[in-house]
């Protein structure tokens, strides 16, 4: 025993020493020998196929809290833009002039310009998914306008770490429902799926310099027959707002395969998320049915995952959608006593009707206009088949454009917030509302 283990020990020791002699080369990289790319922006190039913008974290500004100083968030990243034939040749070129080796393992977001997305981004996705440093949970964003411009407009102000900015900002859809959590993996899976199509969050730089310039040119409220835009009737870049943060996200880009075919505004994304069931809660605004000009706000969350039934009627898919939602009252502008158990159905019914209309508009838009099954109804359709070959022959995605939808929404108010009864306001003219 003693001898044997001694021999083993010596063997291990000698080989360890030999291995140590080998070392120094190969894969050992000090953590501070690497430059961590946080965001990659891809535009169509002027001189070459691609114009790539890299946003690289500056660790000294991010890591040591007391030195970076509060105000100037710009220091936490550096940006470099390069024209290149492909992503990785661009990285190679950038390595040439950056002092540290570029590492993509902490890339949080890949931004495609709209122009590029409309041409198709499959080749870039293919390149990214093969590379081991790029992770599936990297966000994908389509920038309306130039990706470079969008990345340059990013100024993390509430946090020192630009990576945190992207992670927090792009996952905010869970409580706003204006964008979708579009990650590289989701995109990759959906673009290769025969039953659903990918979507990507829209981002842009705010177009307004000061609040005097505000206008509603980019808003979609007119298409929806509204007198004023609700909170979701915008796409990124058109929101009337100014401030220190220049960048904004709103809406999604709809893809057919890997090609962008259209855009949905924030309000429509809400319905996309409802059908997918992938949101936590959001505020929902609608017109007061009894008081013109007043609005009611409820906070909405899912009651149970949406159910969909698929039928083929004369080779046309008919999709019955059954959605259950729950909500809390956030605000009743008019002061009408909707909390009353007798009046509650009015409110619920209004929401249901309003949503049904909007939902159908959204669904027909995806099928008739975009011909892209972003809601993944095809996955439900798949259940009707037992053999893959039959399913492929059936070719769902080509049939989706003819789909008919029957939407049934069931909305229940659960809680009134802190107020259980609205009391009238007394003025010099007497009691004002509610009657």
């Amino acid at each position, binding site marked *: *025993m*003693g*001898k*044997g*283990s*001694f*021999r*083993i*020990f*010596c*063997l*291990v020791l*000698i080989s*360890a020493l030999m*291995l*140590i002699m*080998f*070392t120094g080369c190969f*894969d*050992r*990289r*000090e*953590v*501070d020998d*690497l430059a*961590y790319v*946080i965001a990659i922006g891809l535009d169509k190039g002027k001189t070459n196929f691609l114009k790539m913008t890299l946003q690289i*974290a500056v*660790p*000294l500004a*991010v*890591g*040591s809290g007391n030195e970076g100083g509060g105000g100037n968030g710009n220091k936490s990243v550096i940006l470099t833009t390069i024209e290149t034939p492909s992503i990785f040749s661009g990285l190679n070129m950038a390595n040439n002039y950056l002092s540290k080796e570029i*590492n993509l*393992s*902490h890339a*949080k977001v890949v931004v495609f310009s709209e122009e590029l997305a409309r041409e198709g981004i499959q080749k870039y996705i293919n390149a990214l998914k093969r590379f081991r*440093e790029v*992770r599936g949970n990297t966000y994908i964003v389509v920038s309306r306008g130039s990706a470079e411009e969008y990345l340059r407009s990013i100024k993390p102000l509430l946090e020192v*770490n630009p*990576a*945190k900015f992207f992670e927090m900002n792009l996952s905010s859809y869970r409580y706003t429902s204006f964008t979708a959590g579009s990650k590289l993996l989701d995109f990759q899976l959906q673009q290769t799926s025969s039953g659903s199509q990918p979507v990507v969050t829209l981002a842009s730089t705010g177009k307004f310099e000061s609040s005097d310039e505000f206008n509603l040119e980019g808003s979609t409220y007119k298409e929806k027959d509204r007198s004023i835009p609700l909170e979701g009737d915008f796409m990124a870049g058109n929101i009337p707002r100014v401030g220190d943060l220049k960048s904004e996200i709103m809406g999604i880009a709809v893809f057919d395969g890997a090609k962008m075919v259209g855009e949905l505004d924030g309000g429509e994304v809400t319905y996309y998320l409802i059908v997918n069931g992938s949101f936590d809660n959001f505020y929902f605004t609608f017109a007061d049915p009894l008081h013109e000009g007043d609005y009611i706000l409820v906070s909405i969350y899912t009651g149970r995952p949406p159910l969909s039934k698929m039928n083929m009627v004369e080779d046309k898919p008919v999709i019955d959608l059954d959605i259950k939602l729950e909500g809390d009252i956030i605000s009743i502008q008019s002061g009408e006593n909707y909390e009353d158990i007798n009046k509650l159905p009015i409110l619920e019914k209004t929401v249901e009707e309003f949503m049904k209309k909007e939902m159908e508009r959204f669904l027909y838009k995806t099928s008739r206009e975009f011909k892209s099954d972003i809601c993944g109804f095809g996955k439900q359709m798949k259940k009707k088949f037992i053999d893959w070959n039959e399913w492929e022959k059936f070719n769902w995605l080509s049939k989706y454009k003819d789909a008919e939808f029957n939407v049934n929404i069931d909305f229940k108010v659960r809680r009134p917030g802190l107020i259980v009864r609205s009391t009238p306001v007394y003025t010099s003219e007497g009691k004002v509302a509610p009657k």
Partner: protein
Amino acid sequence: MRKFAETIKSLLIFQEPKEVEKFVLEETEKDEADNDAEEENSGKEDYTASNSEGKKENWITNIMTAPFVMEKEKKTADKGNKGEKDKKKNKDSKNQRGNISKKISENLDYIKKVYSIPTNGDIVLREFDITVKDRTISAFAIFIDGMTDRMVINHAILQPLMMLSNLDIKGNPNELVEYIKKHLLPQSQLNISDTYEKVISEVNFGGCAVFIDGLGVAFTADVKGWEHRSVERPNTELVIRGPQEGFTEVLRVNTALVRKILKDEDLIVENVEIGRRSKTPCSMLYIKDIANEKLVNEVRRRLKSIKIDYLQDSGELEQLIEDSTILHTPQIIDTERPDRVASMLAEGKVAVIVSGSPFALVMPTTATELFRSAEDSYVRFPYANFLKIIRIIGLFLTLLLPGFYIATINYHVEMLPTDLLLAIEASRERVPFPSIVEMLILEVSFELIREAGVRIPGPIGPTLGIIGALILGQAAVAANIVSPILIIIVAVTGIGSFSVPSFSLAFSLRILRFGYILLGTIAGFLGLTTGLFVHLITLVNAKSFGVPFMAPMGPKTSDRYTHELTRAPVWKQERRPDFLNPKDIRKQPPISREWVKGEQGGDEEDEE
């Protein structure tokens, strides 16, 4: 250089292994029929397959002829020595075996020669006369000053011999030896020896010998009375709950401490002498009807076979009887706590206590035993398990954290959360060394602080820790020698190593930690995994007195629940560890709390 080449050669070229009979712990044959059923039940051990039949006989003859063998050994050993001094010694030792002369002058001369009186300052040779019935007999007493109790010598030996011998005592004064023993020496432990050897070894161990003219024998009285520590709190194994006494340097006090706890007449305290010159008394403790006979025999065999001149401490003994010298983990538990020894004896283990050492050795040892602290049995079940989990975390932190850190930041940056990564990068940015050098600097200085902390004189000691940890760390960070994150890593590693209850295990972890740092540097997690695998292989391959080191887990024995990493509630600890193959596997009946109505027995299968 040639030696190096030979080492390499011996590594690469296969050498035929020598036939070494390995000790494998088997169950003892039982003669009672009712035990057979039990044997069948518990006979699920996976590591027995050896014939120690022949062995056993061997031991028996060994024990029986032990003194003879020892003498023979001595002769041959002495023959080998050729120096002048040794020859003289040889002569002496031969004389020692000689009988005591009737002439006191011869005895006196001999004793003076043996003890080099008057060169030897602390040997007291007191000559006096005894007057018995008007006869004056010259006598002398010899004892070693400082090792004996003077008051006892004065009152129980010298006084009665010199003064009380004149009193009128009924008895036959002609049978002088009997007369003196029965009437004149009121000492409780009195022996009569007729050889010098016995006398001298008694005197060497704190006895007082009295030679009287005309008698061919000497009286030796046990008057041990050296200064020693009283029973104090154990220094290294402090507990909050539980007894607070620790072993001392005195053998009999120590055995008494154990016996006091066990109060069991089946507890055997067997005396063994180790050391050809020092003849250090040792005690081998086991419980007769629990401990496996083969285990006891093996321990006895190993103890008796040791040929060493002086044995000073149980630390030496541990190294002499452990299975593998090179193995990194301890294979014998050393403990300062009598209660721990008692509880392990009750499980069927064997303990050895060495005179002069406050640490008892308990064997065999398994990995889980090294995790146990005495407190585990005394605190309540949930707390004990919480402590155990904390300790396991501590162990893994000590062993792996530095290597893990190095591997991560050198090879696997993708596994750090981005915020943490940027923080580490920022803190590393101004450090001029590669992270491995940085780590080694800090780890080595940590070990330095630790070692120096032990050496530094008492009052300064604790301050050094603060100086080391705070000032050095702070300054190193300020000077950009190391990054602050590394200080945290090294500090956590250090704290983790203190949470390991066994001091020797913590030692092995501290050393192996450097191995893992190197492995992490050369191949990241692949290196760490290779290290872990080899580590595990050596651990499962190790044996402590025939018991596989990782016993309850690999090989798996039937009592996983009670003796693995966690601890069962006291009422559920029904069996002794199966891997020890004790004679009595049951500790308590399936229902040990009879007040609980309808309590389910743990396992009824062996209640047939």
